[in-house]
Structure formats: structure tokens, C-alpha cells
């Protein structure tokens, strides 16, 4: 084969991804004295974290003194339909407040209470107002703060650089490095690393209607699995109930849950607040049964039970889906989200400036005067790389994961606001875990040249092929079929169809052909991402077929109820001799003092 020039680097800890989790991990690893670098696909500071709107959940008790980590833990577990890794949920609830205060120490300016403390906002599934926030652009504040911290520490950043393969020493099942390419010129780059932290975010780009950016192709999920790591809960995908549905340019773009947290309600075409018809038994005792009760809850949580508009996201997304199916949707196939009739224009513009701007500029809708049209959009992958709760290490030695790419914390469904706190809580733990590991590792492991050659050959294949399919066409086919066959509501028949679609697309991928050369070529980049998207689609669908029940972000029309049996099982997905296998594994049961929290409530 052709000899390609490869730039080489060596770091104790290599972090892949520069969002909230990757940055926090790198800052921590550096603090422990490890040489640390970050690699990211986009420019530094453009990670999907900037799109996070509503806030960061942490039981600080600034608004409701009664709040504490135990309540947050309970909310998280119940929101996740009890399938969460309980230890991760416990650590998350306990450490989130410190991480918020840490961001403040680093310069983040959160909105304030009247006493000058960090203000907290209501969100779905959280018993108390708990989300530290900056208007509706909390993610931007978080990312800029971490970005500036990382820059001031001098952490090396390889931006617009994409990792395509992880390198593993097979004898010891240990990470040895990674291979990638610079987007600008397409030149190859190789990293030797003692430890690698995957913080590549989500995989939503395999769906047609998604809030994810082009980066959400699940590279980290797929690369880790190919490297031998175990994945968990891949069937659970969160469809955020409120994405924009019109105009076409913005279909799927997120409308923050903060709209409902700040008083907005969902209505159907008959102007009815339909969420009152969709209160599941699990949440009935703590959800308002009348509009008056819900409205007084907004004023003071001791005056009533919470509004059903703020049920966990899976419940709300399914309800919207049913309303639209029943013919009670809005003109563009969503439902109405109304805050205009409920709050003053000044309040709306102050609390939700970017939503105001987004609708005004992109849809010509003034949200202080008229309702928004919204519908479900693929938003978040609950599943991901299975990690150790304490150290964030995967089943491959030296391979760590944090943020959306890691599985376990959120169970079957993530509560809003738990993602930003997840990033920093487990970003920090992964940074420390990787640093400890690297310090205990004497020397860099050799990288197998055969594996490098194989990876390079695979990367260059789209240029060597001819007359194959265009990568954009294959991608669109995947998105359309996933949307149709493995979306919010699933059936065995359609999932099986999807599986054969994946097989079909995998064949097409082998002959995918791109135009031009390696010089900043998005067609080539997409051709390489296809492998990751198809791998993840297969994991997702295979696990979805096995889970013969409905729970959280996995709804089966053919098994509409949650089953006790599956409620105690996590599916582990892994690659064995090149093919993807799914196996059930009994979930860990929590200690008595935590189990206590779920009794008689």
C-alpha cells in the first residue's frame, strides 16, 4: 500500500472531545501532573454543549431549602425508570453542587436569587427548583468557562482533528493510542497514550429529526466498542418532547424545557392542556390533577402538586406523539407550547432570550404574543460505554468515558438538567481515573503497525472506490429509516426490518465513493462517520429487539407495559469476532439505606 506520512505525538492522557465532559476531564488530568491533550472534531468551543439551554441540576437548596442529594438521587432514579446504575446516580447527586460552585469559581456567572445566591429553576421530573442556569444559554456559559480555564492552563488542543480508531494492546486488553486525521489537509496523526478518555457526546445524527449537530455521529461509542469495550442500554434514546417543527430549516432544533419550567403549557388544537390526560400511575401521587392546582404550584410548590407539563421527557414526548396521531396536532404536525398567554413579554424575554430570538428570527414567530409549535426530536442517548462508577473506566484497561457517551447514570430516561451536571461530575472523575491509571503505567505500549495499516486502508477506501454510492445518500437513507423504523414507538417487525436495512447500508458503505481529495473534504469525513453511525444503529436496534417491554426512552407498541423481569436487566452490547452481540445482565441492587428512599412515597 501507499506509504502515508504520519505525525506522531505522545501524551499520558489523551481526551477525545472538547465539550463539557472532555474539558473537565482534561483540566483534572493536568492537575494530577499528567501530560494531557484534547482532540476535537470542530473548532475549540463549538462543541454541542453550547446548545444546552435550560440548566444544570444540583441540589444546592438555594430556592427550596428542603432539597438535598437524596431527593435528587430519587428523582434521577425514578426518571430513569429505576434502571440507572444506582452508584453513578448517587455520586452525581452528591457531587453536582460542588461542581456548580467550582464553575462559579472559574468565572461562570449564573443567574441569582434575591439573596445573591445561584438561582435554580424548575424542570421536568425534579421535585424542587434545582437547575442552576444562565437565562436559556447555560451550556454556552459552562463551555466558555471551562474553555478559558483549559486555555489558561495551557492544555494542548488539536482542533479540527478527528480520531478514527483506538489502538489496543490485545494481549493485555489495554489502550495504547489512537489514529486520526487533520480535517484541514487530511494528514494522518497518531497518538501514543497511556490512557484515553472518550468524551465524544451523542449519536443522534443517525435520526432524521434531531437536535444534534453534525458532530453527533457517535464516533466514541462505536470506536470504544470496536476496541472491545462493553456498551450498556443502547436501546434507550431520548426524544425531547419539544423540538421546533417548522419551518423546515429548524425542524428538530431544541426548545428548552425551561419554557415549561417558567410557566409555559402544552395545548392541542382544541386548546386543551392535554398533559392532564397522560399522567402515569408512577407519578400520579405527586402530579397536579387540575389546571388550578398546577398553576398554584408554579407560585409556590407547597400550594399544590407539580404540573403534568413537567413530567419526565419520555412521558411528555409520548403524549405529544399520541395527540398528533389522534388528529389534534398543530398545522405543522406538532402541538402548541404556549407561554405568551401566561407570562408577561418582559418576563419571557428576560428568562428565555435565546428562545425569543430563535423563533423570531427563524420562524417569524413572536413567542411573547403567540404559541410555539413543537414536537419530539431525537436528543440524547442514555446508553453508551459501560463504565465503573468511581473511576469512569470502561472494560478496556486505560479507556475511560464521560458525558453522553458513557452509559448508566440516566437509566432508561434522562431528566433535563442532569446532563450538564453529569459532564462535570464524571468529567472530573474520568480525569482523575485516567491520571491515576497513567501514573501507575510505566511505559507507553507499542502500537501494532498492522492495525495502523488496516485503519489507514479503511480511511482511504472512499477515494480508491469508484462508482459507489455518495455518502450523503447513504446517510439520508439511514436517517429516514431509523426515524421510521426505530423511533419513538417501536415494534419487533419494524426493528427487524431496520436490522436488514443496516446490513444493506453496510454493504453500500463498503463501496462508498467520494469526490475530490483529502483537503477539508466533508464528503470524505461523512463517509468515515458512516461506519460509526451504522455500528451504533445496529447496537441500538439489536438491544431494542431484546427489550420486550416499554420503559423510558424505549416504547414498544407490541409490548406496551413495563415488565418486572426487564426492570432488573441491563443489556450489555459488545463486539465478538466482528459481530455485535447482546446479552442480558442482572442490574446491581442498591444498598438498603438508598432503597429506603423509594418506600411509601
Amino acid at each position, binding site marked *: 500500500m501507499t506509504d502515508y506520512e504520519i505525525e506522531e505525538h505522545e501524551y499520558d492522557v489523551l481526551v477525545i472531545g472538547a465539550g463539557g465532559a472532555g474539558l473537565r476531564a482534561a483540566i483534572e488530568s493536568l492537575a494530577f501532573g499528567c501530560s494531557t491533550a484534547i482532540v476535537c472534531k470542530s473548532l475549540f468551543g*463549538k462543541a*454541542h454543549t453550547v446548545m444546552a439551554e435550560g440548566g444544570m441540576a444540583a441540589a444546592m437548596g438555594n430556592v427550596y431549602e428542603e432539597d438535598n442529594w437524596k431527593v435528587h438521587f430519587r428523582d434521577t432514579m425514578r426518571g430513569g425508570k429505576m434502571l440507572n446504575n444506582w452508584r453513578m446516580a448517587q455520586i452525581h447527586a452528591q457531587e453536582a453542587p460542588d461542581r456548580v460552585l467550582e464553575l462559579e469559581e*472559574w468565572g461562570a456567572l449564573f443567574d441569582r436569587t434575591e439573596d445573591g445566591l445561584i438561582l435554580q429553576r424548575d424542570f421536568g421530573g425534579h421535585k424542587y427548583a434545582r437547575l442552576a442556569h444562565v437565562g436559556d444559554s447555560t451550556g454556552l456559559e459552562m463551555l*466558555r468557562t471551562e474553555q478559558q480555564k483549559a486555555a489558561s492552563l495551557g492544555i494542548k488542543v488539536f482542533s479540527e482533528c478527528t480520531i478514527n480508531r483506538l489502538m489496543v494492546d490485545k494481549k493485555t486488553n489495554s489502550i495504547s493510542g489512537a489514529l486520526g486525521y487533520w480535517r484541514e489537509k487530511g494528514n494522518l496523526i497518531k497518538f501514543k497514550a497511556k490512557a484515553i478518555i472518550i468524551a465524544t457526546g451523542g449519536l443522534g445524527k443517525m435520526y432524521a429529526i434531531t437536535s444534534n449537530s453534525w458532530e453527533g455521529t457517535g464516533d466514541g461509542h462505536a470506536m470504544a466498542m470496536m476496541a472491545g469495550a462493553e456498551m450498556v442500554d443502547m436501546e434507550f434514546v431520548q426524544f425531547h418532547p419539544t423540538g421546533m417543527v417548522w*419551518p423546515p430549516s429548524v425542524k428538530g432544533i431544541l426548545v428548552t424545557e425551561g419554557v415549561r419550567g417558567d410557566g409555559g403549557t402544552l395545548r392541542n388544537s382544541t386548546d386543551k392542556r392535554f398533559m392532564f390526560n397522560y399522567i402515569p400511575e408512577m407519578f400520579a401521587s405527586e402530579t397536579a390533577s387540575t389546571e388550578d392546582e398546577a398553576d398554584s404550584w408554579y407560585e409556590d410548590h407547597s400550594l399544590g402538586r407539580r404540573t403534568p407539563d413537567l413530567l419526565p421527557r419520555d412521558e411528555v414526548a409520548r403524549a405529544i406523539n399520541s395527540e398528533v396521531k389522534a388528529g389534534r396536532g398543530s398545522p405543522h404536525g406538532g402541538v402548541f407550547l404556549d407561554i405568551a398567554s401566561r407570562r408577561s413579554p418582559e418576563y419571557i424575554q428576560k428568562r428565555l432570550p435565546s428562545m425569543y430570538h430563535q423563533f423570531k428570527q427563524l420562524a417569524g414567530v413572536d413567542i411573547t404574543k403567540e404559541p410555539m409549535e413543537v414536537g419530539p426530536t431525537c436528543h440524547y442517548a442514555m446508553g453508551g460505554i459501560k463504565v465503573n462508577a468511581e473511576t469512569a473506566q470502561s472494560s478496556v484497561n486505560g479507556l475511560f468515558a464521560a458525558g453522553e457517551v458513557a452509559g448508566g447514570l440516566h437509566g432508561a430516561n434522562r431528566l433535563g438538567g442532569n446532563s450538564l451536571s453529569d459532564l462535570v461530575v464524571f468529567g472530573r472523575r474520568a480525569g482523575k481515573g485516567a491520571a491515576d491509571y497513567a501514573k501507575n503505567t510505566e511505559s507507553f505500549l507499542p502500537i501494532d503497525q498492522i492495525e495502523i495499516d488496516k485503519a489507514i486502508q479503511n480511511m482511504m477506501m472512499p477515494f480508491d472506490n469508484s462508482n459507489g454510492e455518495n455518502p*450523503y445518500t447513504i446517510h439520508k437513507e439511514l436517517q429516514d429509516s431509523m426515524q421510521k423504523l426505530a423511533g419513538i414507538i417501536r415494534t419487533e417487525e419494524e426493528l427487524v426490518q431496520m436490522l436488514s436495512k443496516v446490513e444493506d447500508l453496510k454493504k453500500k458503505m463498503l463501496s462508498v465513493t*467520494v469526490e475530490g481529495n483529502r483537503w*477539508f473534504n*466533508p464528503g*470524505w469525513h461523512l463517509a468515515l462517520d458512516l461506519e460509526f453511525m451504522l455500528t451504533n444503529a445496529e447496537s441500538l436496534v439489536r438491544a431494542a429487539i431484546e427489550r420486550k417491554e416499554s420503559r423510558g426512552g424505549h416504547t414498544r407498541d407490541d409490548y406496551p407495559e413495563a415488565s418486572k423481569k426487564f426492570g432488573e436487566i441491563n443489556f450489555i452490547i459488545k463486539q465478538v469476532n466482528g459481530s455485535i452481540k447482546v446479552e442480558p445482565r442482572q442490574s446491581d441492587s442498591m444498598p438498603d439505606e438508598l432503597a429506603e428512599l423509594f418506600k411509601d412515597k
Partner: protein
Amino acid sequence: MPLVDLKVWRGDDNGEYISYLVEYDEGEVILDVVHRLQSTDAQDLAVRWNCKAGKCGSCSAEVNGKPSLMCMQRMVNFTPGEEIIISPMKTFPLIKDLVTDVSWNYENARKVPAFSPKKVDTDGKHRMQQVDIERGQEFHQCIECYLCQDVCHVIRDQRIKIILLALGFLYK
């Protein structure tokens, strides 16, 4: 679907404008049309983008000579039949097509010292009034699209490499 006459810069400094007829829908933005062009006639057309909602500042370019985020330019605001010219930002060195080298912003950001907080209150918390932080929050809203540098005639025309720090960093 109607067609729009798109003239796009292709290549590096020695490149040229190339005209394409691309389908579009009234409800789309320029970036959608650029993406359609990419998926049909110009697979290797280099363009940066991420959020598609005016929040990440990636898709900066010049649309009919006006520095813009392509994701915020709605097709409905153009006259049918109008030729639309899309060029890379002229302030920055061109890499390829619509992608420019904005790295000096990141180099400058590294020169800014870390934020140093005031002492916390005795209970370990900071107290600040909303009204006092609002000015600071405004600067933190900078999406780093660098369009301000693209419209700045000092940087753009005279190519003076002044140490311009992104406003948010300066404030700190």
C-alpha cells in the same frame, strides 16, 4: 421545488466563484441550500457548521458581501431569481471554499490569565446581585463567530495584526 442561482467561492486564494443551480424551499436558510449543494453537486465543498440556530458561531461567511451566519439567513428574505453570492470571510486567511483560518483568536485567548474570584462568604458561597452580573453576562454571550472582525475595516482592509481579544475575555 424552485431553484436558486448560487455562486460559491471554490478553492483557495487561487480559486474562483462557481455557479450552481440548487433546489430550495421557502422555509429554508442559506445553510440548508449549501448542504443540499454538498449532497448533490459539490460533495467536497468545505463549510463549517454545528448548531444551525445561531448559537455556536461556526457558519460565518459573506452572503452577497454581507458578513452573516448562514444558518440565520432565511431564503424567504431573498427575491426569487436573485443570484446569491457566498464567499468566505475576507479578514482571515482562506483555507478552502468557505473555511478560513481563525486560529489567531485561539492563540490570543491563551494569553489571557485565568479568572481570579473574590473570596467566598463564610458559608463558602459567593453572593452577587442579578443587576450586577448582567453586564458581565452580556459579554459571556459572545458566540465567537468572528464576524465582528470580518466587518472591522482596520483588521480587514489594512490587515493589521493587532492583539484583539474576544470581548468576553477582555472583560475578565
